[in-house]
């Protein structure tokens, strides 16, 4: 492949099948002898099952439950706390209890309504507030960490401080709304079960199946179907569905399809953790920061799932992009009897960045300094320590990126213009806000070395066609294109001669899950190395295969117990400027201009990167002011897309973005992670812009019209 610059865009590998709709997603498949499954779910939040009564079933309809599971009754993730089918205790509304299978979905739904269960109900914990009050009670704290400066030293600093500022900040649920609802099919064969579906992590699913089915490595096989969006929502959740269909297929000896409709998907699947963040900061007379203590509380929902890892990332980002003197942080994942929360693009970082950017913005007001100027005083520089005593060892281009946007937006002039506009306008107010952020690429700490141990293979056929053998999922982010391109360029082969078939665990080694902004950087690097190796041994007309294994670059070793060391091998960076107009009569926020600068090492494909920027930022902005999901007594209140309100084409505006080159030695062609970074800055920038327009601080996201109107009323009351 003859590209001068790897970043030059090429056509997407999977374009044709997608634009014509002829690429088959899981719900488009029909296999022989296939039945559907539907799940009977707990209608109560917390209780003990006393008896289960299933109605008489017509011929060809069967019930599958906990007693049909060959292995232990849990979905293997990290802890063993998530049953496949609850058979004793239920811990949230919507928890699966049994499955009915049969040919006709309408008949199945009718039968579901006739299932009767007797309960002993217990007092549930429904809110994060309540869980915080009860955090010392048994089982409520599911994970916790604490690190940083000693509290004695901080207490001494606080005693000498001019002022101590305390703030509490709340973030809400966020729902993925991948356009393709979750779906999974188990194909029954005499000697193996093939599980196929919409997924990000083939080997997570395979490992969960081996445990649940108590079977050997060769007895199950996992195949990815084209995946209609993931955003983290298809990271760990599909493992449970895979267990459901595989257990059912084994029990009824038929192929079993489980596809959620939108309302089921919205109510029972994992979401971004609601969080409460508490800040306690000591200031001197000029408003300079002397010390800071942060507490992070995540609502884990009914079981821990991946929440402990999400909390780690939330804590690792709790100081934002700032070098804060005498920093201390602690955090908790707390149990509530609500739908379990899990992975979502950003993985704990969006909550932390929303909180810290808000807090720092509010501190700047006290110091009477423009928020951006105040933030820049504390911006980390190359060589600075991280909050875990790691090191920012690579060059940091944040100052350049900020300067560039100050010029592009004419920031200072715009500030004055907006002030004048706001002075002359009673109803509409304009504001500009900024956010500064980073994203640690790849797994936290030594995860790649100790847990993932990625392996990739390249296979060359006799006709000199090369295929990628990796377990990573293209879920729309474009790795079919970018990873194929890396291999084609390295081998000097035409792009068309490199293929990347939908992964199947029978064919591909475990190159790790498709998560954590690791795929391009980690898997891409392994493929680059494999391609170099293949090139060196290349023999025309001969079948060849090469393998590469992950090699860890030792830095400051990560210690999860003391929370010290290099938490990430590398960081990607971003700056967002957002301009809004707020209607003070309705509380509606209109985006006017959005500017975004990023640094992701080296872009592998400009067009794919722009797709990540536009899509990620749209999700991040909406997280700050548009998308609202709530739970009432354990029941998710938004059951349709419209109730929830993700952005339509009318809500977003064109985004002016730029990506800065800063090649990273351990990434392919210098590339680092990009997928999650683009979401993180949206919410804090939109909040800052709304605050600038209204000259009112907020302590929560999303800042919906209701929140705006209420704060304006409150202010009127205070002023009036």
């Amino acid at each position, binding site marked *: 492949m003859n590209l001068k610059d790897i970043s030059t865009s090429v056509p997407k590998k999977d374009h044709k099948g997608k634009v014509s*709709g002829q690429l088959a997603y899981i719900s488009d498949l029909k296999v022989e002898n296939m039945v559907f499954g539907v799940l009977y779910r707990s209608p109560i939040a917390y209780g003990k099952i006393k008896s289960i009564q299933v109605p008489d079933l017509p011929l060809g309809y069967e019930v599958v439950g906990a007693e049909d599971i060959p292995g232990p009754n849990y979905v293997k993730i990290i802890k063993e706390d998530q049953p496949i089918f609850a058979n004793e205790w239920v811990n949230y509304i919507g928890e699966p209890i049994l499955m009915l299978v049969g040919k006709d979905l309408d008949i199945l739904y009718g039968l579901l309504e006739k299932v009767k269960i007797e309960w002993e109900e217990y007092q549930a914990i429904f809110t994060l507030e309540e869980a915080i009050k009860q955090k010392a009670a048994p089982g409520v704290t599911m994970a916790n960490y604490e690190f940083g400066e000693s509290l004695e030293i901080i207490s001494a600093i606080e005693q000498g401080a001019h002022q101590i500022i305390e703030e509490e900040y709340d973030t809400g649920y966020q729902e993925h709304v991948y356009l393709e609802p979750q779906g999974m099919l188990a194909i029954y064969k005499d000697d193996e079960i093939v599980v196929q579906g919409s997924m990000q992590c083939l080997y997570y699913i395979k490992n969960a199946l081996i445990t649940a089915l108590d079977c050997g490595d060769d007895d199950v096989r996992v195949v990815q179907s084209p995946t209609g969006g993931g955003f983290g929502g298809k990271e760990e959740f599909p493992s449970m569905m895979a267990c459901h269909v595989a257990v059912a297929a084994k029990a009824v000896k038929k192929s079993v399809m489980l596809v959620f409709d939108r309302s089921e998907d919205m109510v029972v699947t994992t979401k971004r953790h609601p969080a409460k963040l508490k800040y306690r900061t000591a200031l001197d007379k000029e408003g300079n920061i002397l010390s800071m203590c942060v507490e992070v509380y995540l609502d884990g929902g009914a079981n821990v799932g991946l929440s402990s890892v999400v909390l780690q990332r939330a804590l690792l980002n709790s100081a934002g992009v700032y070098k804060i003197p005498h920093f201390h942080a602690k955090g908790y994942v707390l149990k509530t009897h609500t739908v379990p929360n899990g992975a979502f693009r950003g993985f704990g970082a969006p909550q932390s960045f929303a909180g810290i950017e808000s807090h720092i913005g509010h501190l700047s007001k006290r110091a009477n300094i423009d928020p951006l100027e105040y933030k820049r005083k504390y911006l980390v520089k190359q060589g600075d320590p991280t909050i875990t005593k790691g090191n920012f060892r690579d060059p940091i281009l944040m100052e350049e990126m900020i300067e560039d946007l100050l010029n592009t937006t004419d920031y200072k002039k715009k500030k004055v213009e907006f002030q004048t506009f706001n002075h002359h306008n009673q109803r509409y107010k304009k504001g500009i806000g900024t956010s500064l952020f980073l994203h640690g690429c790849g797994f936290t700490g030594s995860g790649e070395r100790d847990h993932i141990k990625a392996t990739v293979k390249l296979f060359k056929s006799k006709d000199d066609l090369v295929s990628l053998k990796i377990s990573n999922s293209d879920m729309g982010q474009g790795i079919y294109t970018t990873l194929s391109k890396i291999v084609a360029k390295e081998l000097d082969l035409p792009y068309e001669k490199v293929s990347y078939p939908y992964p199947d665990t029978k064919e591909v080694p475990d190159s790790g899950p498709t998560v954590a902004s690791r795929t391009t950087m980690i898997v891409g690097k392994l493929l680059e190395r494999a391609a170099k190796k293949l090139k060196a041994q290349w023999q025309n007309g001969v079948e060849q295969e090469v393998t590469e294994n992950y090699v860890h670059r030792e830095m400051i070793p990560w210690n999860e117990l003391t929370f010290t060391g290099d938490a990430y091998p590398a960081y990607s960076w971003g700056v967002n400027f957002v301009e809004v107009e707020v209607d003070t009569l309705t509380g509606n926020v209109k985006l006017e201009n959005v500017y975004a600068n990023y640094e992701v090492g080296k872009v592998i494909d400009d067009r794919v990167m*722009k797709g990540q920027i536009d899509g990620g930022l749209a999700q991040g902005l909406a997280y700050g002011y548009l998308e609202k999901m709530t739970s009432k007594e354990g029941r998710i209140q938004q059951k349709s897309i419209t109730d929830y309100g993700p952005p339509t084409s009318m809500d977003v505006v064109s985004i002016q973005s730029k990506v800065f080159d800063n090649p990273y030695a351990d990434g392919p062609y210098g590339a680092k992670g990009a997928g999650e970074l683009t979401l993180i800055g949206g919410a804090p920038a939109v909040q800052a812009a709304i605050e600038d327009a209204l000259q009112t601080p907020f302590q929560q996201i999303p800042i919906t019209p209701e929140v705006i109107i209420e704060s304006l009323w409150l202010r009127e009351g205070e002023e009036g």
Partner: protein
Amino acid sequence: MITFTLNGRKVETDAPPSARLLDVIRDEYLLIGTKEGCGEGECGACSIFVNNLLQNSCLIPIGSIEGAEIVTIEGIMESDQFKILDESYSEAGGVQCGYCIPGMVMASAALLAQNPHPSEAEIREGISGNLCRCTGYNMIVDAINLAAKKGDGLWQKK
């Protein structure tokens, strides 16, 4: 028995009148390009043409389309207009996960047939009934803009 035209071909179905057109298209005629994203008319993934008008097939009971002309993405796939849209979506990078795309392409074709030179605001309005979660819409807006230019003169003739 309900009779209608599907992609130019006269067809008959004995599906119950309350069956959703979406299910009949997918299950009986095995046309998979029409996707189900919400089943409530909110996302547009199941967009089709009913007598040349863009509609959500998940909201249409089969009983209501007697004699109607139904066109799905498969019905336009060979057209010159589709080729232009295909190229433009590729060039602009409008496709990520792809699940919303057949519906989005139908909405694009409907918009351009009605308004061959739409402004950005008109494009945004034209696809506002079609949700996309991957792209943030801008590259889809670009694709439609590009298609309007590339297919100049092509959109008017039906």
